[in-house]
């Protein structure tokens, strides 16, 4: 067991998977000579050479599509998109091709590829560089969408994604790259499609993923000091979505709050809330609440950006409101 950053966990996993399997190669803008915009691929060009660590031109549609074509012939490309915002330029290849090729041709060829990309606001990057549009991909059958929140999960889930025969959108987060955590020394391969109860509690279920899963854990720790017992569910996999784990938790606690680093309307939180009402209707003591981004293109100015984003404080407020609404407990 060692304590490393989320960034290091990703880099170590890429490196060990490249050593394990000759078919694994990396494609992306600035991943080689520049060593990655966020330095995830630092040192890998030097170690593996240009054949396996391939700098691409700024042509997301072209190189994402090339990765799909290479995967169709059995390579296992891992593509880095500099941020998830740029995936919009490749969206035809991701949705109309990567997600369709296995089914559209009657299961004759799979597409074993990974698209790694960070989402996340809070860096004053403005409207076009602060989005979390993993929802677009989570909507699409044929894709698998993973959103790890800790270094250990990042390693185990990236390993699983690379070894999986389907196209995986692997969501990272700018706000998580420097976070640290314990990562086991042995190779753990996560099971795709499972959420996890990362903290048990009895008063309320708090659901998040990616950066929000990290924030919800902190909120739960703080509320425990006030005598409020929060159960935290980390979704980990946005597609498939593990509804059972969510609903079983809500059946135990009777109320739920969802935290998402994303706009509320039509969002992932909306899907979870709908699932909860269908799967745990008789157990609910309060309306399911969502804590989500203000519905504006993200502004640059720091006070505006901070106000627009969900935070530990806003989540705490909504938990108090939910609990007081049912009169069960007022923090």
């Amino acid at each position, binding site marked *: 067991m060692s304590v490393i950053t989320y960034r290091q966990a990703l880099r170590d996993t890429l490196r060990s998977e490249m050593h394990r399997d000759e078919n694994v190669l990396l494609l992306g803008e600035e991943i080689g000579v520049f060593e990655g915009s966020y330095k995830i691929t630092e040192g890998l060009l030097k170690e593996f050479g240009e054949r396996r660590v391939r700098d691409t031109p700024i042509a997301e*549609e*072209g190189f994402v*599509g*090339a990765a799909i074509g*290479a995967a169709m012939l*059995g390579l296992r490309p891992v593509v880095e998109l500099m941020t998830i915002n740029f995936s919009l330029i490749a969206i035809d290849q991701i949705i109309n091709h990567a997600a369709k090729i296995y089914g559209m041709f009657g299961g004759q060829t799979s597409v074993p590829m990974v698209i790694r990309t960070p989402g996340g606001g809070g860096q004053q990057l403005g409207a076009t560089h602060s989005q979390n549009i993993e929802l677009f991909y989570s909507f699409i059958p044929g894709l698998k969408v993973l959103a790890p929140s800790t270094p250990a999960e990042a390693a185990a889930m990236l390993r699983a994604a690379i070894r999986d025969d389907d196209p995986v959108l692997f969501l990272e987060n700018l706000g998580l790259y420097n976070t640290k955590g314990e990562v086991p020394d042995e190779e753990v391969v996560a099971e795709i499609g499972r959420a996890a109860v990362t903290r048990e509690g009895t008063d309320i279920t708090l659901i998040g993923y990616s950066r929000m899963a990290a924030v919800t854990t902190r909120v739960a720790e703080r509320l425990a000091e006030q005598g409020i017992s929060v159960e935290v569910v980390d979704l980990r996999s946005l597609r498939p979505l593990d509804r059972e784990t969510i609903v079983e938790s809500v059946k135990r606690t009777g109320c739920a709050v969802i935290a998402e680093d994303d706009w509320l309307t039509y969002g992932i939180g909306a899907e979870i809330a709908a699932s909860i009402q*269908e799967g745990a209707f008789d157990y609910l003591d309060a309306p399911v609440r969502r804590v989500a981004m203000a519905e504006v293109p993200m502004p640059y100015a720091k006070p505006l950006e901070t106000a627009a984003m969900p935070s530990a404080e806003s989540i705490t407020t909504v938990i108090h409101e939910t609990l007081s609404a049912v009169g069960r407990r007022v923090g």
Partner: protein
Amino acid sequence: MADTAKPRGTGRTGTRRRTARKEAGPTLNDEQPKVLLDYYRQMLLIRRFEERTAQAYTQARIGGYCHLNLGEEATVVGLMTALQERDYLFTNYREHGYAIGKGIHPRRVMAELYGRSTGVSKGWGGSMHMFDTEARLLGGYGIVGGQLPLAVGAALAVSYRGGDEVVMCQMGDGTTNIGAFHESLNIAALWNLPVVFVVINNYTGMGTTVEKSSAEPELYKRGSSYRMEGVRVDGQDVLAVRDAAADLVERARAEQKPFLLEAMSHRMKGHSVVDPAKYRSAEQAEEAKANDPVAAFEARLTEAGILTDELRQEIADSVKDEVADAADFAENSPHPEVSTLFDYTYATPVPNESSRMPADPVFAEQ
């Protein structure tokens, strides 16, 4: 060299369209009659197959969109002849003839059009999405330009493994205006990938002419932006297409680099079966008809004494039987079972994958 576009084969640079085929192509002198008759039979097979397809479509045996290769037979057969069995092919959605030309049995192509489980894509793809691992047809694609990045990736895999296969990527003239075309040509040239991009220029993208949609209407020249040699060929002449394509395919294999081939072809009917092509003038329609590659090749072989009346009848009969057999096979094949609906969402099974039917509850136990 900044400008490596070199017209080859029968197509010279002429700025007037439809001039390419006026010039003399390869002669029949060096050809084996048996081979020529085989080309003729393949072209006629595609012609009759597509006519039968149109008929089945109007009888509602075939659904969806349906784009035919009528008028493109010489190009299809010439291109497919130029490929080795091990070479890979990507096409757009006008692909039935290519599937047959790449070696897939017409029965399986027709069954796919009928949406049957015996179809080449098991009834999951339809007219636009045919795929066969063994024949190395790596898909027909319905999104204009979608197949280009994929073809580049397949060539990357070949190159990565040091293989000697070539990837051919077919597209229509309209595709040369979409971003994926330019991104793909650039990457293929940068990375020295063995892919031959083939533009079927039938003068019209749906109803919009090449001149109205392409600032450089001599499409083979577009490769020059990527220092990629471009070649234009008369797509009405099966031998010219075969020679030009075989030259580029073998050079791609030997030199490990991409090429661009433009085949000047004609679309005898509308964009799809349901399109009456009213936007075409009577003169344009007449010109397409006058450029019928099957009739032209038939006349040429007859004139050379290779195609006798007896042979013509024999070939016509056998093609007719083969197409009828394909339609019968399709008609009598089973529809895919509804129980297979969730078989092809994921290649690696995954927990919590949805197999919910429209009226099912989200939670099965309810």
